């Protein structure tokens, strides 16, 4: 019985052969089978991927928008109360573990205030369609996306602030000011546009960390994405699934980096996409 099982899973072969077989299968797009669920790993992952992309995408957009806004505000009022406040806030979120932020948000907004649902992705058994379903999912999305986004918001705010201060001291800004360009226009067209380049580079690199962080957030909020899948696989010692999630997220990161490089050429015409 034991020998038969070993032969069935290929565990009777030497480790190197097992690795070669695994890599060979991966190259053919076969990530193996989850022995707990008896289903192909790739299917399991693809089924869960949209939920994760929705969560990380929302968090990313929120982090970029809020981070750049706060960073720009801080740079504009450098040395004043608003600047110190934003800097302290950014430093604080930078130092807080993601999963703890999530738990605290649950504690405040679900347990004490009872405003938002604390786990899951939609109301169970409510069979909603159209707009009602979108609104329903959006309610469940708020807390996890906020949790994941706040940390990166802090990172982008600090980066935007530093980058804007550096650009603001350059000669072309003084020229623009000298020829009488309105201050708001200088800020938007001259400083911000140039200051955004390093922020975007960094954001592209960090996309991978965002997916890694989503494991923790999905665990806290029981969000049915690949992070939750990885956590369940971890508990069940279903390593094929864990490795599959690892591979798929790595590929996603590479794709995302490529996308950032292309975006770079759009934002800065001086960069030529080779």
């Amino acid at each position, binding site marked *: 019985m034991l020998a038969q099982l070993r032969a069935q899973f290929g565990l009777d072969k030497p480790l190197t052969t097992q690795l070669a077989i695994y890599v060979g299968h991966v190259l053919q797009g076969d990530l193996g089978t989850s022995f707990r669920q008896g289903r192909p790993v790739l299917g399991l992952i693809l089924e869960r991927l949209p939920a994760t992309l929705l969560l990380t995408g929302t968090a990313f957009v929120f982090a970029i928008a809020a981070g750049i806004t706060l960073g720009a505000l801080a740079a504009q009022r450098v040395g004043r109360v608003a600047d110190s406040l934003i800097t302290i806030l950014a430093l604080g979120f930078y*130092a*807080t573990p993601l999963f703890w932020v999530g738990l605290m948000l649950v504690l405040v907004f679900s347990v004490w205030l009872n405003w938002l649902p604390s786990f899951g992705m939609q109301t169970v058994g409510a069979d909603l369609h159209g707009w009602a379903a979108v609104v329903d999912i959006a309610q469940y999305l708020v807390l996890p996306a906020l949790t994941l986004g706040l940390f990166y918001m802090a990172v982008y705010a600090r980066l935007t602030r530093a980058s804007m201060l550096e650009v603001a001291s350059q000669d072309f800004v003084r020229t623009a000011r000298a020829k009488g360009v309105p201050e708001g226009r200088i800020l938007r067209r001259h400083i911000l546009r140039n200051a955004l380049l390093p922020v975007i580079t960094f954001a592209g690199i960090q996309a991978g960390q965002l997916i890694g962080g989503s*494991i923790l957030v999905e665990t*806290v909020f029981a969000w049915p994405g690949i992070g939750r899948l990885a956590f369940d696989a971890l508990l069940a010692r279903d390593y094929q699934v864990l490795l599959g999630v*690892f591979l798929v997220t790595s590929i996603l990161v590479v794709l995302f980096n490529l996308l950032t490089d292309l975006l770079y050429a759009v934002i800065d015409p001086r960069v030529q996409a080779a």
Partner: protein
Amino acid sequence: MKPFLRAYARNKGAVLGLMILALVALTAALANVVFPFSPWDMQGAPFQPPFDPDAWLGTDSLGRDVAAGIAYGARVSLLIGAVSTAVSLLIGVSLGAIAGYAGGLLDDAVMRFTEFFQTIPSFILAIVLVAIFSPNLGSIVAAIAIVSWPPVTRVIRAEFLSLRGREFVQAAEVLGRSRTAIVFREILPNALSPLIVLASLMVANAILLESGLSFLGLGDPNLMSWGFMIGAGRSVIRLAWWMSVFPGVAIFLTVLALNLVGEGLGDALNPRLARRR
């Protein structure tokens, strides 16, 4: 040393950070004096609310003292943070020094290798490594070190590239000093200041990573840790908020302190950059 201390003390946040850090270290050192019992032992009724003379941060679902858990957890966090940072500094500095000093094909090879590790989502890699090698102190330290060395390599390589063409290095070469002597005695000491700043931020990051791992149940099963305590409090958060709030505050304060110290060190070691900000 004196002007350095004065420059450091000019940054109020950095001084505050150092004070918090000293407090955390003191808690870790005195854990078995203040709490002369195992943090895993039952100390009172389960779910005892905090601010009570018996258990001033409350007890958890098995009646374990939360304050004792935090004190013993400080040891684990600081230990893992320090050791894993030391290991990743060792890997990162060696590779960075080789790449920056040797240059050419070797440099290319090392940097592609580094980029490979930088692209892989680090937290997931750490999870996979700890899960496969079964969670214990050694595997956790190794996993954190393996995912956090790439920035060190990049920094050291950049420093070596800019330093190795300088006159004092050329002078050493003309004097016939060996390559190892040039690398360790001439160049490395001059590349230390960015390394020190980076190291303090890496300890902070390692503590965050460790708490994430033990939150997911990948901590050393014999050691009480902050992440584990938050993970245990997660399912009973409606009943006992103190179980997850206080360990989180401990992580927050420690990581914040390390970040502040890192910033202060950066300002003090690099006064010209600090004034521009």
